[in-house]
């Protein structure tokens, strides 16, 4: 299940929803990304997440499909928030269920790496010294490339 929403999510509720009524799942891994109060500048007071409606959902769907083609997965939930968020707010949730832990760990890691480099979201941070658009990080691209080399 893939959702792009303004409202907050509860990782516990989403995780239980994915597992409900299932006894074939041996492992579930969840990742929650949060707003930090420091980034390229200190004192981040809030951020605004913009996305490209339509393309966002398709891009996320494609990333999940790629994960499913690499690992045998019993269930995947991806939720990404948009709009104005404050420090400590959850931004993104990825929950992956599989029969075995390695597939669940790796697929969750893969989905986050691809999400950060391929899904059309942009962050603008509001700090004490003004607003700025967050720039891309080389590290994110290196992380995403790991999956190309290992196959």
């Amino acid at each position, binding site marked *: 299940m893939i959702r792009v929403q303004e409202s907050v999510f509860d990782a516990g509720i989403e995780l239980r929803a994915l597992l409900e009524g299932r006894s074939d799942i041996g492992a579930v891994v969840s990742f929650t*990304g949060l707003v930090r109060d420091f980034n*390229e500048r200190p004192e981040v*007071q809030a951020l*605004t*997440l*913009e*996305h*490209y409606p*339509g*393309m966002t959902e*398709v891009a996320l769907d494609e990333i999940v499909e790629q994960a499913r083609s690499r690992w045998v997965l019993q269930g995947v939930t991806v939720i*990404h928030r948009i709009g104005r968020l404050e420090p400590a707010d959850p*931004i*993104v949730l990825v929950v992956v269920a599989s029969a075995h832990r390695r597939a669940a760990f790796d697929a969750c890691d893969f989905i*986050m790496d691809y*999400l*950060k*480099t*391929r*899904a*059309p*979201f*942009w*962050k*603008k941070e*509001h700090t*004490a010294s*003004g*607003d*700025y*658009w*967050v*720039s*891309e990080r080389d590290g*994110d691209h290196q992380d995403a490339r790991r999956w190309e080399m290992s196959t």
Partner: protein
Amino acid sequence: MSLTHINARGEAHMVDVADKPESTREASASGLIRMQPETLALLAEGGLPKGDVLATARIAGIQAAKRTHELIPLCHALALSKVAIDFELDEPECCVHVTATCRLTGRTGVEMEALTAVSVACLTLYDMCKAVDKGMEIGAIHLDTKTGGKSGDYRRDEAWGARAVAPSIIESSPSPIVTGEGVSGEVSVGHRCDIATPCLRVKCLAELRERLGVGDVSVPLERLPSSDVAGLKTALKALDARFEGLDQGRVLCAVNQVMASDATPLTDNDEVAFFPPVTGG
């Protein structure tokens, strides 16, 4: 040179523009409002009693541009195709720089609209902040550029030389793009193609939209030297110099919401989006 708004008898009159040819006219004007550092800080963090100051001033400027003919006696009522208002908070100089750009295809220039938009945006900033700072000062309102029309193009910096512009106004900082919160300030209804003309719908997103000052634009397919993304970029740059910014930094492209490259072919009614590298997650 004579004053066009005065007739042979020395009376004020409105110029008959019916016989002038239509052309694309654009004008940019700017000004500033000086304030106490504390006021500027409150404005930056949104702590003023009347709420979102910049968003309100932006709407006021756009509205003012549209109603210029009601304020300036001999101005024509114009169907503006675009009004954009931008603010730049200048902490070292303790002021807010206000810029307005107006555009239309028609028979008269739009410099009065741009100047009126700047003036009213400044007045609105005063109104929104006066509870905490009554000593604010509005100044340096002037026309920066004007293009199109019989009298030719005008650029203030060329016409006046360096003395016209105080150093505080032209100094640009190397820091990342800094913009106010709220809406992007873009009201773009121009360049609509008619239904029979094959056309592309072009979007600029996020930082690119704010950097170029362009949100949505339609481009007739016939303007493209080649029917692909590279051809579209060439056509956009010919349409408006701001699109030179498409070559600055890493700019990505999607056609019909799928990642694309310069060689991706384009056909009628395609949606083409340009945007900076993604930073979600």
